[in-house]
């Protein structure tokens, strides 16, 4: 019986992975081969999808960009014995793209069957939870604090400090809310982890619950991720059945229940207080802070809100110790970051590395430059609210502070690469347009500023009173930055200002105009 691995990650499905799996099973049966098809997550080498792997005595041999109609040919050429073929990559673990990475959070993604608890445990799963159960809540929080783990959703707030606040806030009920409203364009790590290794997230949330004394957990997933929702729900059912969730987590007597909640097509609901409102069944209107959600969160109760990547890093920290995680990274950016290479990129996908790689190395060496083959003009880091950076930033190290010093932000670690055909005035306009479309409407700078922003940019591009309108845009950006309640209005000026600063020619700025 030969094991054949075919991903069921959405990205692989988008290139025909289901049809490939069906074709392999159909044609193998016809030819009398015995195969077991294991559906996995994706290895994160998305340009190779569908990437089929075959188990051999030497290891897993990969075949790239397989389509259903090439399957008969591939089987005839000896797919099941790992024979060579035009599409054969050799041993997948030996590929440079993977070998050069430090996969901690993504250690199991693409390798295991996401819904097999046996697979999960045999690859180190549940070790962190078992260790946590033996520790006092304060000790768990201490481990997370010492690991240096910071919020991977974008804000970079130290996770242990947040947990500590919730731990020491008295309440009859506390909550763990996982923010899986991954709406930033260029980011897909949360989705791939939820689809490829959901038990890691579940384990991380249970540990968080035990650490702060919360018995209820909610995962808020965007509706654009139907496959992730499906896999999570199945994984939660398995975890309940095996008493990993429920009234007595692994027989510890500690209770933790978990539920998936689905968004309804609103970007701003990725902002933590808007997410709380949405979880309470209301319009996703941003709340003023303070009070912070750690004190007054879901239904007014103390709530830990962390991103998928933050919570998914927790099991490894508890399994291998804070110092192990802390040993990776630079300065105050500790551990690994799951970078996502997106947009016009030759080798797009998941790159998990310790903080510190330079932007230039990430997009040029790892990513291989653009997919179109043209020169890179700019990279937008951190989603629609992130700054555009150019070639002069290639030496910037990827870390929270180093990027901030360069005028950018890490955000959720997504990098969108653009080639030299992009018009940056259009991108600046889009940033304002997007803000106008997705603003919750609670505060004036964001609600109205974004619409005025589109108009001002249009006037600048049309060459109308450029000096005056540039001054107005600058003033508007300042008001939005300083006067908005949340990052939606507060950070929209980032892409606008950076585009204008780096590429004024795209705005048709006449000579002499400042």
């Amino acid at each position, binding site marked *: 019986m030969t094991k054949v691995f075919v991903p069921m990650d959405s990205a692989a499905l988008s290139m025909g992975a289901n049809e490939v799996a069906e074709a392999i099973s159909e044609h193998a049966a016809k030819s009398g081969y015995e195969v077991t098809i294991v559906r996995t997550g994706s290895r994160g080498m998305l340009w190779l999808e569908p990437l089929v792997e075959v188990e051999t005595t030497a290891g897993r041999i990969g075949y790239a960009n397989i389509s259903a109609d090439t399957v008969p040919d591939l089987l005839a050429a000896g797919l099941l014995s790992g024979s060579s073929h035009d599409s054969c990559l050799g041993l997948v673990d030996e590929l440079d793209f993977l070998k050069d990475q430090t996969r901690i959070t993504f250690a199991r993604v693409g390798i295991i069957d996401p819904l097999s608890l046996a697979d999960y445990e045999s690859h180190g799963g549940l070790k962190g939870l078992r260790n946590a159960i033996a520790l006092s809540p304060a000790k768990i929080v201490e481990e997370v604090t010492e690991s240096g783990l910071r919020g991977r959703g974008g804000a970079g707030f130290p996770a242990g400090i947040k947990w500590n606040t919730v731990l020491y806030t008295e309440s009859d009920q506390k909550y763990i809310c996982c923010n899986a409203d991954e709406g930033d364009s260029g980011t897909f790590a949360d989705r791939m982890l939820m689809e490829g290794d959901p038990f890691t997230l579940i384990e991380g949330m249970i540990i968080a619950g035990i650490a702060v004394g919360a018995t209820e957990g909610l995962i808020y997933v965007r509706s654009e991720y139907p496959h992730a929702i499906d896999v999570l729900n199945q994984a939660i059912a398995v975890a309940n059945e095996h008493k990993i969730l429920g009234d007595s987590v692994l027989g510890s007597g500690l209770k933790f229940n978990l539920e998936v909640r689905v968004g*309804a097509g609103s970007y701003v609901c990725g902002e933590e207080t808007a997410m709380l409102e949405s979880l309470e*069944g209301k319009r996703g209107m941003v709340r003023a802070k303070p009070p912070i959600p750690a004190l007054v969160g879901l239904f007014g109760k103390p709530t830990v809100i962390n991103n998928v990547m933050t919570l998914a890093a927790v099991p490894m920290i508890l399994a291998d110790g804070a110092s192990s995680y802390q040993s990776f990274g630079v300065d105050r950016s500790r551990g690994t970051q799951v970078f996502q290479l997106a947009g016009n990129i030759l080798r797009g996908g998941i790159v998990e590395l310790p903080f510190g790689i330079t932007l230039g190395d990430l997009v040029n060496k790892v990513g291989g430059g653009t*997919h179109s083959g043209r020169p890179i003009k700019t990279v937008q880091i951190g989603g629609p609210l992130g700054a555009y950076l150019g070639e002069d930033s290639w030496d910037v190290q990827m870390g929270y502070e180093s990027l901030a010093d360069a005028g950018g932000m890490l955000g959720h670690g997504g990098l969108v690469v653009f080639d030299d055909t992009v018009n940056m005035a259009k991108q600046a306009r889009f940033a304002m347009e997007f803000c106008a479309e997705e603003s919750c409407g609670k505060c004036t700078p964001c609600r109205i500023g974004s619409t005025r922003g589109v108009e001002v940019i249009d006037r600048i591009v049309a060459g109308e009173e450029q000096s005056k309108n540039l001054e107005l845009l600058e003033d508007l950006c300042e008001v939005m930055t300083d006067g908005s309640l949340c990052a939606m209005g507060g950070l929209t000026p980032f892409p606008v200002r950076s585009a204008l600063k780096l590429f004024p020619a795209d705005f048709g700025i006449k000579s002499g105009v400042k």
Partner: protein
Amino acid sequence: MSNYSEESIINYLGPYKGDASAVLRSLQLVQDLLGYVPDSALDIIAKNSNVSRAEVYGVFTFYSDFRSTPPAKVVVKVCVAEACQASGNASLISELHDHGYDIHNGSIKDDIQMEQTFCLGNCALGPAAMVNGNPIGRATCERIFAAAAVVAS
């Protein structure tokens, strides 16, 4: 799809009775059942959750997923966010326009509805699209219409 009775909706909403925090989930449930949220369902949900109709209407209009009219048999979502812009979605959008679909207005033709969306999480294989929930990477008109034909059959 539009055959429903007030009673049947109330039955489905049973678990949410008296729960003001279930307004969003109630709307999602109705849309899952019917494909859209008819105006009368807003009253039913308001009564069931013990909140005002205005509150339900406020939630209904805040979220872009909700529809007030039945969808076409095939719903295609085309990503218009940055990563897909970088991957040349402009030509896809203009080709779809040539086929009679304005994705910015969610136009319907031949039982296919084309809508814009901001990010489907398939940002390394753009332009990205989704046909009745099935993801399409490196989307072209041909691939979208082929997928639409499969789900319509």
